[in-house]
């Protein structure tokens, strides 16, 4: 395995370091990294936690592609070498660890919570929602914030201010929720938001959870365009 190392204060820019890792048929790339950390070089840093593709920590660039390393088998790459780099498009803190604080700020900027107007129901009854209404936004609620989509999107890589696929998909998750009464037009209808996307479509291709953010964005473009032309149509 060839792993990108960047030690602030020591390396001026990332360098590759090679490690020999046994090729086990059921090892994921992450198991290879853990093997390096435990047996060969304790100073390698990277994030991981659940090892079951749901916490979203372990996204990296594997042989040029944005992947979840816990869900990518080493055997996919034959005898190697497998090149592991940090996610593209983010500042690198150390080795394979990138800075995602910018993303978290974007996430909260789309008001990702259920907005209600008027009285709240008491805590004895739920807001009714049929399975069809659930299905209308369910897909967009599956995002694990792994940021593979950002890393794959050339617009984001060129312009870090772009609101980006996952944040917009999350906004749509609430927009399309039958219980939500909020309006996110002001944040989404911006040049750095939906209009920044030129529909490259890579975000959808790399998304491990089939969220289809590209679709979410194009759908909101249509919504936003219609609203701009027909000012009286609210949603």
């Amino acid at each position, binding site marked *: 395995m060839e792993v990108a190392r960047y030690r602030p204060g020591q390396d001026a820019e990332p360098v590759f370091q090679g490690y020999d890792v046994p090729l086990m048929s059921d090892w994921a790339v992450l198991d290879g990294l853990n093997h390096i950390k435990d047996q060969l070089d304790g100073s390698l840093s990277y994030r991981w936690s659940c090892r079951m593709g749901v916490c979203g920590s372990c996204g990296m660039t594997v042989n040029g592609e944005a992947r979840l390393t816990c869900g990518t088998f080493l055997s996919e790459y034959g005898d190697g070498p497998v090149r592991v780099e940090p996610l*593209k498009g983010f500042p*690198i803190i150390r080795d394979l660890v*990138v800075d995602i604080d910018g993303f978290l700020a974007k996430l909260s900027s789309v008001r990702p919570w259920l907005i209600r107007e008027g009285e709240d129901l008491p805590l004895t009854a739920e807001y009714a929602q049929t399975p069809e209404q659930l299905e209308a936004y369910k897909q967009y609620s599956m995002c694990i914030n792994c940021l593979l989509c950002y890393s794959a999107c*050339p617009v984001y890589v060129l312009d870090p201010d772009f609101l980006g696929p996952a944040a917009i998909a999350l906004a749509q998750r609430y927009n399309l929720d039958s219980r939500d009464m909020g309006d996110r037009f002001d944040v989404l209808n911006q040049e750095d938001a939906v209009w920044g996307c030129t*529909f490259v479509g890579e975000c959808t291709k790399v998304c491990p959870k089939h969220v289809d953010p590209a*679709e979410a964005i194009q759908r909101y473009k*249509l919504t936003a365009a219609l609203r701009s032309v027909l000012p009286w149509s609210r949603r």
Partner: protein
Amino acid sequence: MKTEVPAGAAYRPRRDRLWFARTRSYTIFVLRELTSVFVAWSVAFLLMLAGAVLGGGLPEFAALAGRPWMIAINVVALAATAFHSVTFLNLAPKATVVRLDGYRLPAWMIQGGNHSLWLVVSAVIAFFVLRGFR
């Protein structure tokens, strides 16, 4: 050795100028976008044609269009506009989600409809250009 890292001293990778050559799908994306140049060209070509028709210079225009390099450009333009049609009509269901009975219409139905429409429109245009209605 202790190396203090001031907060925010993260390494910012340099911009990759050749990003569009890195993977096949990026290249396809860029090709798709570049079809727009030929869309513009085709429109210009048609405007020249219209000008020739209305200004009475059709034979000269036909001669110009018959030059080998003109034909070459137009063959490429044909490929580009056709590629544009295929990609554009295929991507349409992304923005227009049609719901019937609470469940969304599958993408292939919308795409199929789009492509049929394309065929019909092409046939009608060809009919008028070649036969007319007089």
